[in-house]
């Protein structure tokens, strides 16, 4: 794996700079508080994790940009991109290396949420299908968000700008389908908004359905943003 060293370096940076700990802590704390305290899961008498996973897209809006904001903006501010881009890597190898590192962090966070369903399972008659589907959706949605965040970081001036722009971008693309709940749009337009929305594609996973169209959507979005990021890097050389 030619980009292996990039993955290792990025992961070291995440943990040495403590960003990994902060993001993980925020994710776990916010999710659990929402589910157990605000949604009062234990009083609702339903054996479903839907309440937990429905908040995941919202937590992502704040956490994914924190993971990706540094990827390129910080390299450029410190001048280390001059080292990175003059090492014998192709642009896409750097982009994929950075993406894989952030994706591994996402998997770690997902793994750390597992104790929650595990402790709840004995309390009622849960179905494992929906929970597994929800995990798959959570991971695919996260991957798309991370790819988008890296793309934003590639042209942002600094990491704060990258963070804010990614939050705004994720907010729009995640909740695009909510416009339909507010105003009555013509059918085709509401269809487009639904189709673009991260949350819309996530809802079927939430119901325990694995629809190849939704899987395909997230995979394509992830690939597209990674491709665009490597184009931005190449374009910068021409400036």
């Amino acid at each position: 794996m030619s980009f292996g060293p990039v993955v290792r370096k990025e992961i070291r940076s995440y943990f040495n700079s403590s960003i990994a700990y902060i993001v993980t802590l925020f994710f776990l704390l916010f999710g659990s508080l929402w589910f157990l305290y605000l949604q009062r899961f234990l009083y609702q008498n339903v054996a479903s994790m839907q309440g937990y996973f429905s908040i995941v897209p919202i937590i992502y809006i704040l956490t994914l940009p924190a993971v990706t904001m540094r990827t390129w903006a910080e390299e450029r501010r410190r001048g280390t991109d001059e080292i990175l881009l003059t090492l014998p890597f192709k642009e896409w190898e750097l982009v994929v290396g950075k993406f894989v590192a952030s994706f591994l962090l996402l998997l770690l966070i997902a793994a750390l949420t597992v104790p929650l369903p595990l402790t709840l399972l004995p309390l009622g008659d849960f179905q494992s299908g929906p929970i597994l589907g929800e995990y798959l959706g959570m991971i695919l949605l996260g991957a798309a968000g991370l790819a988008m965040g890296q793309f934003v970081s590639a042209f942002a001036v600094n990491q704060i700008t990258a963070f804010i722009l990614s939050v705004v971008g994720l907010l729009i693309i995640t909740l695009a389908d909510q416009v339909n709940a507010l105003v009555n749009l013509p059918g085709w337009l509401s269809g487009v908004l639904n189709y673009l929305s991260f949350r819309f594609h996530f809802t079927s996973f939430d119901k325990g359905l694995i629809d190849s169209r939704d899987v395909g959507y997230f995979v394509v979005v992830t690939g597209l943003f990674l491709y665009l990021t490597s184009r931005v890097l190449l374009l910068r050389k021409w400036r």
Partner: protein
Amino acid sequence: MIEVENVTKLYGEVRAVDGVSFRIGKGEVVGLLGPNGAGKTTMMRILTGYHLPSSGRARINDYDIYADSVAVRRSVGYLPENAPVYDELTVGEYLEFIAGARAIPRPERAERIEEASRTCGLGSVMEQTISTLSKGYRQRVGVAQAIMHSPEILILDEPTTGLDPNQIKDMRRLLKELGNTKTVILSTHVLGEVEAVCGRVLIMNKGKIVAEGAPDVIAGKLKGKPRFRLEMRAAELGKADLLAAKFVAEVVSLSRGEKGHYTAELITTDERNSGELLFDWAVERGYKIISMVPVGMSLEEIFSQLTREAGE
């Protein structure tokens, strides 16, 4: 072997590098000298594949910098300006990343890291986080990074900037050592550095190469004519009075202070004993010299003079 043909780089309207051509043979140590903004850094960025030229061609070991960019980067070690490093990593972690990125086979890695850190004197700080290091050590980490894969060609952008005199001495010794086995291009705006380590000098100004040659020849040209700042007390003194002396070539400035206190800056024609001549001349005329200081030309003046000469 580095061949550059008619390379131009535009940043918007600005011509950072303007029709530059040169050739550097295997094993040469070449200094790229010029004032800030002359285009040295841009030229190096083009050779290392960080930027692409707007027009022109460049080849390193017969690899084209555009078409075979990755092959070019494989044979080059690069220290960018200000030696950027990953603050949050330790020196060891960073060098390990570089060794991996340079595709050094796993069994050899430890040895190569050890070798690079020994050459650059990093043994005692391998476990330290880079953000805690002094400027001198950061610079050495940057050099260690550049020589990790023992590249044939080293491109070093201002390797001694920001170092204290002792560190500069160490760095020059290191550069000389590296120059024995590698092709080296280093940029600087310090004339003495070029004389100390380089076999050949290219002088850049405003994006162009304005002079080229052996360092001692270039240094002779660059030192320029002797120049003095004089403070004198005199009853009356005009430019014409100063120019009346045979050995005064040019009066750069003349100003009058209180009580017949004059300050003048002159360029003299005589290369050897113009100080003596000036002194005798003042005594003869009854001027009282308060101070007389030889001044060097500033690098900017020298470069603009060289540019004018190149244009003529």
